[in-house]
């Protein structure tokens, strides 16, 4: 198939395999992002050194540079489709989708964050991904008017659907305290990031309105106020160490500037950060 207009699609295909091939499917890692969707049969695949069994309707998501294949190199009987997209990992170890994508900057950030989240690489019962792969192949084959745009849209659709599926998988819908705890952990792990409510809701696997409502009733705060809480609590700890500059503290705890840090800090505590630091050092 003609892939020249799509340099970011490294490979796309479907295999119908009617006999076992020894050495047909060894473990290997590549630079891009791969999705495998099982249509028929039962496949035992190893992803990043963990072994999974996939049934029809299941999809495997393989991040760049993760090993994937059959532990015994065997290609089992059945059929599956796959796509291999070029998605880079930038210097901050974040995924970065190429300029072909029409995801908005906010959506791009959320989707990448979720794809990189610590989740199982197998998405069970995910026929949406199979349908999209089929759609891309049909477009490539027919080359009707607008097919270049359509294919890139379908790729975006695939990434969006995958991240939604992961977000839904990450909670059971039963234990909000645990979901909230996980969210808190992720916020703290990346406090310098300018979190939006939409991103936080996506991590919790909830629609934004429901997320707002649940966080408010559980914590007493809106999600952004809760986040400011964490930012200031961390800033207080850093202010007690004389070796970090106020600007570094501001950026490390997620304020846009030392001015923004100072105003927010003062509104809550009555002290400017430098007064707070001076006071604390005096106690010595």
């Amino acid at each position, binding site marked *: 198939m003609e892939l020249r207009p799509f340099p970011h699609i490294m490979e796309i295909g479907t295999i119908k395999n009617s006999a076992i091939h020894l050495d047909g499917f060894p473990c290997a890692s590549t630079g891009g992002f791969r999705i495998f969707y099982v249509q028929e049969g039962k496949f035992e695949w190893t992803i990043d050194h963990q072994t999974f069994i996939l049934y029809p309707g299941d999809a495997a998501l393989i991040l760049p540079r993760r090993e994937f294949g059959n532990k015994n190199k065997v290609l089992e009987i059945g059929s599956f489709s796959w796509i291999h997209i070029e998605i880079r990992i930038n210097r901050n170890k974040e995924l970065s989708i190429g300029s072909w994508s029409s995801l908005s900057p906010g959506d791009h950030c959320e989707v990448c964050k979720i794809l990189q989240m610590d989740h199982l690489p197998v998405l069970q019962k995910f026929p949406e991904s199979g349908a999209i792969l089929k759609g891309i192949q049909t477009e490539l084959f027919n080359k009707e008017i607008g097919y270049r745009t359509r294919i890139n849209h379908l790729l975006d659709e695939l990434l969006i659907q995958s991240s939604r599926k992961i977000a839904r998988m990450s909670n059971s819908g039963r234990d909000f305290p645990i979901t909230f705890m996980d969210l808190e952990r992720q916020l703290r792990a990346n406090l310098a990031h300018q979190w939006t409510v939409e991103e936080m809701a996506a991590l919790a696997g909830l629609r934004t309105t429901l997320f707002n409502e649940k966080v408010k009733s559980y*914590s007493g705060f809106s999600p952004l106020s809760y986040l400011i809480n964490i930012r200031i609590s961390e800033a207080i700890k850093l202010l007690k160490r004389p070796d970090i500059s106020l600007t570094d503290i501001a950026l490390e705890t997620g304020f846009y500037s030392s001015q923004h840090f100072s105003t927010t800090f003062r509104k809550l505590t009555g002290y400017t950060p430098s007064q707070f630091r001076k006071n604390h050092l005096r106690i010595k």
Partner: protein
Amino acid sequence: MECIITIELGTNAIRVYAFDLNGITIGSLKGYCPTFHSEPDHSEQDPDQIFITMLYVLKNLLNDVLHPKKYKVLCICFSSSMHSILPVDKTGSPMGNAITWADNRANKEAAQLKNSALGKKIYNSTGTPLHPMSPLAKIAWIKNNEMAKFKQVSKFLSLKSYILQQLTGEYMTDYSIASATGLLNIHKIKWDPDSMRFAGIKPSMLPDLVPVFTRAGKLNKAYQTSLGLSADTKILVGSSDGCMATLGDGVSGEGVANITVEDSGAIRVMGDKVLQDEKQRFFNYLLTENRYVSGGPTNNGGIIFEWFTRQFGDFKNPFDIEQNMLELIAQASKIPAGSGGLLFLPYLLGERAPIWNANARGVFFGLNITHEKAHFVRAAIEGILYEIYSIGKTLQEHRNFKSLSINGSFGTLPIFSQMIADIFNKPVRLRQNYHSVSYGSYLLAATEMGIYKSLEEAAKSVKLTELITPNKKNHKPYIKHYEIFERLSTKLSSEFADIVALQHP
């Protein structure tokens, strides 16, 4: 118009209430603070996050409710959960997170004391059960496991002492919180030399010991400005959540016992004498000189019913735990008392009073082919309350009580309070939409301000509006089932130990 603010530093939430001088609630807000479990038996909270959350909630209540209505805040009275410990260095900076009551890392230190003559002596002087919850055991753990850190510690604070110090600069702890540390001789009201030696610390490493009515110094200028409070706002050190829940329910003397069923649970009595229990099953906390709150705590309160609901609720809407609990309760109420002979031991979190067995585990017992899901639901609730009853029953070996008062978000659910009345066969009083800990703190502040002559008088003013009388018909089947429950909970102790060994290989 004048008002009193109470601040409860609880395990899950900071609750700020404002009362007018007659004790009518003007407004309230809460803010959540997480508990971190870096290891399975660790439970920690971030002291600075608690401080900031407290400020944030207080500020919101002031700005949204009190300042617009031109209330003058006369007094802010604190209460907090017990048994927390926070080491700080010589600059007063926390050396890591605070260790909360639920932390079990000091299991070995507590066990070592419990089986010794020294332990018996310490329990008799301090009134705190020898358990990993107690700061005594936790400090000993830090000494035994983190010597380098231990050497740098300037003071061991409670979370409340830290918050007060941030606000006013004073290091103080009140009698109630101090009497829950295992470090205080509750008869002499002095730090106990045996405990000091075991923990490896000196009294100078603890905050100043003061009565609950003490003013904790003046609010720092910056907070006066940011909160819009005047310099003469009284900051009262206040007491503990357990003592305040008891006072807030109007219990001040003999004849009444107080039951709390929140996530965990407790049953308490108040009196002028310590309960000296040979088996060391009860706590004795000091409210004021010669006034003790005694009783026993259970780990397995409402949190167990919440767990049950999460597993067996339908969850048509994500995270709608309240609705699912109500649906399960509706199913349970159709089943007769005794759940058709199905018993539940609720020890999913191990147990404190009265069996004090960290290895205890949950059990459904007596299942037959006719039992349905609704039987399980009812048995789960009955099991949680049999456990409260088992503490109450042992408590009655020391103290008589004719009636009960109940509080807590689970305790005040109709099915829970009626069952408690029926199992104990005693009348129960309670009040819906009433927060006993906060009201207790209001009473404490109001007494300090002279609105009441004494805490007894303050307690008498409490009106628990709802009276539930026991249903005699249910009492008998409950007691027959309870007897088997009681036997099982001790009989299974070696099997509990064996299964725990499999759960933690």
